[in-house]
């Protein structure tokens, strides 16, 4: 199903993260034209350990290969940021990356 590119950097206690999820984000309109099933990311979370640091419920109107940029506190260099998304078909993709 594709994967995610994650970049996370800590500075002065604030982590800036940039996540690009590879996903076609097929809207209902597009799917109709192409004769395919609509499919898009519906929910994405970011975790450090057990702590949720990012969470979004999303619709079909995010761009193709959507980009998620966000900031959070409470993590340090070397911690692992785990991003996980679920799409309309039910597929879940999880990727982790160490915070730099």
């Amino acid at each position, binding site marked *: 199903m594709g994967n995610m590119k994650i970049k996370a950097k800590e500075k002065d206690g*604030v982590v800036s993260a940039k996540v690009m999820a590879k996903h076609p*984000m*097929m*809207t*209902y*309109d*597009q799917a109709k*034209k*192409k004769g395919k099933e609509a499919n898009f990311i*519906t*929910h994405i*979370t970011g975790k450090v350990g057990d*702590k*949720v*640091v*990012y*969470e*979004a*419920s*999303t*619709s*079909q*109107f*995010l*761009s*193709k290969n*959507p*980009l*998620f*940029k*966000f*900031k*959070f*506190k*409470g993590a340090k260099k070397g911690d692992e940021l785990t991003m996980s998304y679920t799409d309309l078909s039910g597929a879940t993709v999880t990727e982790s990356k160490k915070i730099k």
Partner: protein
Amino acid sequence: MNRRKFLGLGLAAVALAPVAINAIDFRKEKPDAWTAKTIDDAIKALYGDVKPIESDKIKIKNPKVASNGGAVPVGIKSDIDAKSVALFQEVNPESAVAVWTVPEGGIIDYSTKIKMKASGTLTVVVEGKDGKLYKKTTDKMEVALGGCEG
């Protein structure tokens, strides 16, 4: 004219009890919000019958002219102590684009890329921890190429 009169039943507004837990999937919790055709309906479905207050504490970053409606960069910033942030637009078939749950210690500084079918405005609603809703609408954004057809 022998028309029946229907009395509009005033439905008691059910106070939404906000659940103070993380990991709320707004698509499962509030399915109506994602099929609402207008921003007002979507806000109502998501947060109940609360009138949002216009606020300057919300900053929305978006291009004045988006050359490609398939990927319009949008940034949202706010220092409101919030529970959730929702992004809507007025031109696509449905209004809701995304709803963020603000985790404990979270900073409202979100960027993403969205699709816009035509020129229009974006609206961001921030649900404060004080139970109030704050709203900000952008100026109309020009979209050169609609992004929903592909």
